């Protein structure tokens, strides 16, 4: 017999036969004598490719009958080395890379990175840019939560919700397309401000969206909140006490659903969040139902913030006037020698950041998104690290699922809302 590892991969694939199956009963199946079935622990593998794992997440699950006894999340299947790639990019090019980590909350990745770099540069961001950032961050929060509710409801069997959620997320993506030209991965935030001012018509379209959205949220609630399957799967399942969540470093809607009102927008306000009036929704029980309701209410609060941002949008530049950091306006290049030099320097070399390190945190739709940047004085970062909330929150999955039914386990994964691009980076 030849060494099996010497056979080329494709050959080995063809050599797999089904002959051996059926010779002896596989443990845990009905063929095992009765009585054993209930006591036996049975390990199954969910994922990495599974519609209910929200990406490429592998869950090694130990079951006793239908009860989940243990879960081990296995990750790394979409690790693409974005943090390493950032070290080879100039600061302004790295924004494009970090946006691809948490691919539903791209504005937040860019925001955390830009905040860290601005802090190292001691660069002031003009008030209009701050407001435009808040406006887009909150639009992104709604888009992210809409996609979450669409896929979470799909996991529990409500297919209509998938279409409704994606339909309304499209309204937000249309707005992103208006302001930046891209629907996802917009790269709208720059170090020192935002790429462009909002175009004419953007405000009217956003107001239209703000007007239509509360009714849509009511529609979701009337679809889900009286649905028996939805309520059975979510009420009273996946409860983890607040103390345990804090130990595990869980933040965001998961923590707020358990009754802890921690929100970085209120706790340590960044950008212009201290000028806005909004509430932080919290739950009481901390089960999956609370997680669902907290996110729905967060969308309503985001709409309020968007409205206020449109009302109070200050006049002024949309990006810092510091030409060492931000590109000069295009029309200046034809008339100003300095503008041409600055443009050339920024596009070829980029800007240099003085040596130092910093950690900037923002409240993303999933919790605290922190960005650590180590600068060595060159035009490229020496280290970019994202403390991604999905990565840290995933550790609470075993606590949520243990002792529950496997059907509730799927609901737990859905309500945890992990984005595997952010988990693996």
């Amino acid at each position, binding site marked *: 017999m030849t060494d099996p590892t010497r056979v080329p991969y494709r050959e080995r694939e063809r050599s797999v036969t089904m002959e051996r199956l059926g010779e002896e009963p596989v443990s845990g199946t009905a063929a095992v004598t009765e009585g054993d079935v209930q006591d036996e622990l049975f390990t199954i593998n969910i994922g990495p490719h599974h519609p209910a794992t929200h990406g490429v997440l592998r869950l090694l699950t130990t079951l006793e009958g239908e009860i989940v006894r243990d879960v081990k999340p296995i990750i*790394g299947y979409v690790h693409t080395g974005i*943090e390493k790639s950032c070290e080879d990019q100039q600061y302004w090019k790295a924004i494009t890379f970090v946006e691809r980590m948490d691919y539903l909350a791209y504005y937040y990745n860019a925001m955390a990175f830009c905040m860290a770099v601005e802090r190292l540069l001691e660069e002031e961001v003009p008030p209009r840019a701050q407001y435009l950032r808040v406006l887009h961050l909150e639009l992104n929060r709604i888009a992210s939560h809409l996609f979450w509710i669409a896929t979470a409801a799909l996991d529990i069997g409500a297919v209509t919700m998938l279409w409704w959620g994606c339909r309304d997320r499209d309204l937000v993506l249309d707005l992103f397309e208006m302001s930046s030209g891209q629907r996802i991965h917009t790269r709208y935030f720059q170090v020192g401000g935002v790429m462009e001012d909002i175009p004419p018509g953007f405000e009217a379209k956003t107001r239209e969206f703000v007007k239509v959205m509360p009714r849509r949220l009511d529609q979701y609630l009337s679809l889900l909140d009286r649905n028996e399957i939805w309520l059975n799967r979510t009420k009273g399942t996946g409860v983890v006490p607040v103390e345990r969540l804090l130990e*595990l470093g869980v933040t965001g809607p998961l923590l707020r659903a358990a009754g802890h009102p921690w929100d970085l927008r209120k706790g340590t306000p960044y950008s212009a969040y201290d000028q806005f009036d909004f509430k932080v929704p919290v739950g009481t029980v901390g089960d999956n139902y609370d997680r669902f309701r907290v996110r729905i209410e967060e969308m309503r609060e985001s709409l309020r913030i968007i409205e206020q941002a449109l009302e109070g949008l200050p006049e002024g530049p949309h990006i810092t006037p510091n030409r060492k950091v931000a590109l000069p306006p295009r029309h200046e290049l034809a008339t100003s020698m300095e503008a041409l030099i600055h443009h050339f320097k920024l596009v070829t070399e980029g800007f240099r950041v003085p040596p130092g390190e910093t950690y900037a945190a923002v409240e993303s739709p999933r919790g605290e998104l922190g960005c650590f940047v180590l600068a060595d004085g060159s035009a490229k970062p*020496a280290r970019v690290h994202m403390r991604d909330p999905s990565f840290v929150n995933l*550790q609470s999955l075993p606590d949520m699922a243990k002792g529950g039914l496997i059907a509730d386990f799927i609901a737990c994964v859905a309500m945890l809302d992990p984005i595997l691009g952010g988990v693996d980076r």
Partner: protein
Amino acid sequence: MPDATGLELIAQRVREGVSPEAVTGTAFYRGEATLEVAPSAVHDVLAYLRDADEEPWPLLMSLHGCDYLPEEPRLGVHYQLLSMERTDRLNVKTRIGVEDPILRSVVDLYPTADFQEREVYDMFGVLFDGHPDHRRILMPEDYEGFPQRRDFPMGGEPVLFTFNEDEYPRWYD
């Protein structure tokens, strides 16, 4: 953030509460306070800051590593502490060399460090003594090397396709 004076007070309390050699320095940069700690004392200092200090830091928000390549000791591990009551952050940082990079795990103090210590091990090769499940987390289990170190080349690996798999003998080992 504790201001520069507050940071010195914390450093003084840690020196008295743990040991005089535990704190190797303080840094206050861009409004952020960093307490530099000897690698052997990390666990004790964090235990002190979490429980015994008069201004406790009950939460670990982020644990990450970095590589300060030309400098020695090369590797750094950062512990971002948070106090929700005071809405305050403190960065505890330690520096270790690549020859003997061993730290004591803080999973018993902060269970959130589990995945994050595994990631630092995976990317930088820092060993965490006492970690309950010390394995790689993002890279394949049989991967060699620690890719986030700065002397690890970028893009040095061949990309395997069916048409070129013959060019890389025994790639499947």
